[in-house]
């Protein structure tokens, strides 16, 4: 096995050959689309680049990596790739998907053995080092599943457990079967909210795949406002959601947009659901706070609609990211362990 690795900057480089085929083979979600990654990279402070490891011609592993500027510097978008050369400025690399908080950003061909995976990681890290230059301070993989930790871990590295992500395995054939497994109080409240929303003439609820009827900038504003209200993550490597990205994402046939609007057309809440042959994703949830004119309980209605798709389409699981674990547990979600592996500069590319 001869592995070669290369970092592709979606802003400047063409789509790696065989990328779509690899995505299908590994069951990658919509957000791994190279065109979407290009938009994301342009609109980022810390642009995601794509590391691709090949065994011969065939892609064996891939990872999205955010090349991060120090968080204490004044925020600005990443410099244009044509002027970028590997430089001495401090940077670190986060193997992270800015759009899916509960999934690993490093993906291996399912047939690759653990030894193969270790070799792929080394090749990948050396490519990152070449791409970033001597300023690279280290690489973190966050999050990764428990079974990947042993592949990534080696002397000098540190690993720890993160907040878990939440997963609802599909064990039902009807929506009522699912509701029957919840506590009586939760079940009754979900039904009551759904009826109330249904009968409310001042509320317009629309859901659909590949929708183009919503202003993506309006949606971006709602999402960014929601994020700002929740306070965001400390040293969040992400940049505010850009309308241009959402415009492209929402156009996809495997992305469902759910919107709640007031009688005067105000966007009260919205949700994006990413379809997938097995693991569907409740991706964005954003709502106006009640103080801003928002409504209570749309959140539960959104979950009901997502579970409805899970069951009717016969998918294996619905994931809903980190946070609000208590509420999600009351809806039947379980925790899935997530870990971080931090690789300091000295261990980058080492055995």
């Amino acid at each position: 096995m001869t592995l070669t690795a290369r970092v592709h900057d979606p802003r400047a480089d063409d789509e790696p050959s065989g990328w779509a085929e690899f995505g299908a083979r590994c069951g990658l979600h919509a957000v791994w689309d190279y065109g979407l990654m290009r938009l994301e990279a342009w609109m980022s402070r810390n642009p995601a680049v794509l590391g691709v490891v090949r065994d011969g011609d065939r892609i064996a592993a891939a990872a999205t990596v955010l090349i991060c500027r120090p968080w204490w510097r004044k925020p600005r978008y990443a410099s244009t790739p044509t002027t970028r050369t590997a430089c001495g400025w401090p940077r670190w690399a986060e193997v992270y998907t800015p759009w899916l908080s509960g999934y690993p950003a490093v993906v291996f061909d399912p047939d690759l053995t653990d030894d193969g995976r270790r070799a792929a990681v080394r090749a990948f890290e050396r490519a990152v080092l070449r791409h970033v230059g001597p300023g690279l301070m280290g690489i973190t993989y966050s999050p990764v599943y428990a079974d990947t930790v042993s592949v990534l871990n080696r002397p000098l590295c540190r690993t720890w457990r993160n907040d878990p992500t939440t997963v609802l395995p599909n064990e039902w054939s009807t929506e009522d079967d699912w509701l029957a497994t919840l506590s009586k109080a939760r079940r009754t409240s979900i039904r009551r909210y759904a009826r109330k929303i249904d009968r409310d003439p001042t509320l317009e609820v629309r859901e659909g795949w590949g929708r183009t009827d919503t202003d993506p900038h309006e949606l971006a504003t709602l999402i960014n406002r929601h994020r700002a209200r929740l306070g965001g993550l400390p040293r969040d490597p992400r940049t505010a959601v850009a309308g241009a990205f959402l415009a492209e994402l929402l156009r996809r046939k495997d992305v469902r947009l759910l919107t709640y609007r007031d009688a005067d057309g105000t966007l009260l809440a919205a949700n994006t659901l990413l379809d997938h042959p097995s693991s569907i994703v409740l991706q964005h949830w954003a709502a106006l706070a009640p103080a801003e004119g928002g409504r209570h309980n749309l959140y539960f209605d959104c979950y009901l609609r997502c579970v409805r798709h899970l069951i009717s389409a016969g998918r294996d699981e619905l994931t809903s990211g980190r946070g609000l674990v208590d509420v999600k547990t009351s809806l039947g979600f379980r925790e899935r362990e997530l870990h971080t592996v931090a690789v300091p500069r000295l261990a980058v590319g080492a055995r």
Partner: protein
Amino acid sequence: MRWRRGYLRVVRSSFATVPFYRELWALGGHTDPVLLPGKAAVDGGAVVPSALTGRVGDLVPLAGGPADIDPWRGLGPVLAEHLAVTAGALVAVVDPTTPRPPVDLPEGVRSCVLDPAGLGGAYAGVFDEVANHLRRGERVVAVGGDKDLDQLAAALPELLAHRLTRAPVRAPDDLPSPVGPVALIAHPLLGVLGALGGCGRWHLDHCRVYLRATSAGAAYTLLRQRSPRLVDVIAGSGRPGLCPRHGTPVVEP
């Protein structure tokens, strides 16, 4: 030239830090200066004001800043330069829409805002203040549209109306041959852009405003307003020129 250097700086910094321009130019390109080689730009990367509707939040740089559009931005410096407005004067903005008084007047210059429709009603107190100022022989500069200024003048006693210094505003797409000695160029998003000079040419407030000709018309840039950032906003069809008498930038209608 220094004027152009200031513009280049604003374009680069907007591309690097302001969401709206990042999106516009990364995907659509910008020429003169070329930001991304090989990318053809629609109208050189300039933007029509209607494209900014609902997007003012995206004109704020990533580091944060105000998101208020001030339609009277730049009024102070332009009045100071072209009408020698100095301490003691009262600037009366006559505007049925403006919610607040100008903020950049020279020190010692007072200001008030009047809705011409409410001179006898909600704005009666302000109107009296204007009249008293004129009665005392102090200078009052009234700024607004021709019709609005006419309404104010008509409401004043004839003697006082004559003492009023009128500074009518013109939109950048309405710069005819001058009818009076004084006129300002103003735009609802960009604020006050310049004024008619003694030479009869439309002088730009070039310390704060840059003008560039594009295929879609005249594109104005505010050189000093950090947030909300306004760059290459199309308004009217004027072209940049240089006043032979003053040697400073003008708009040629």
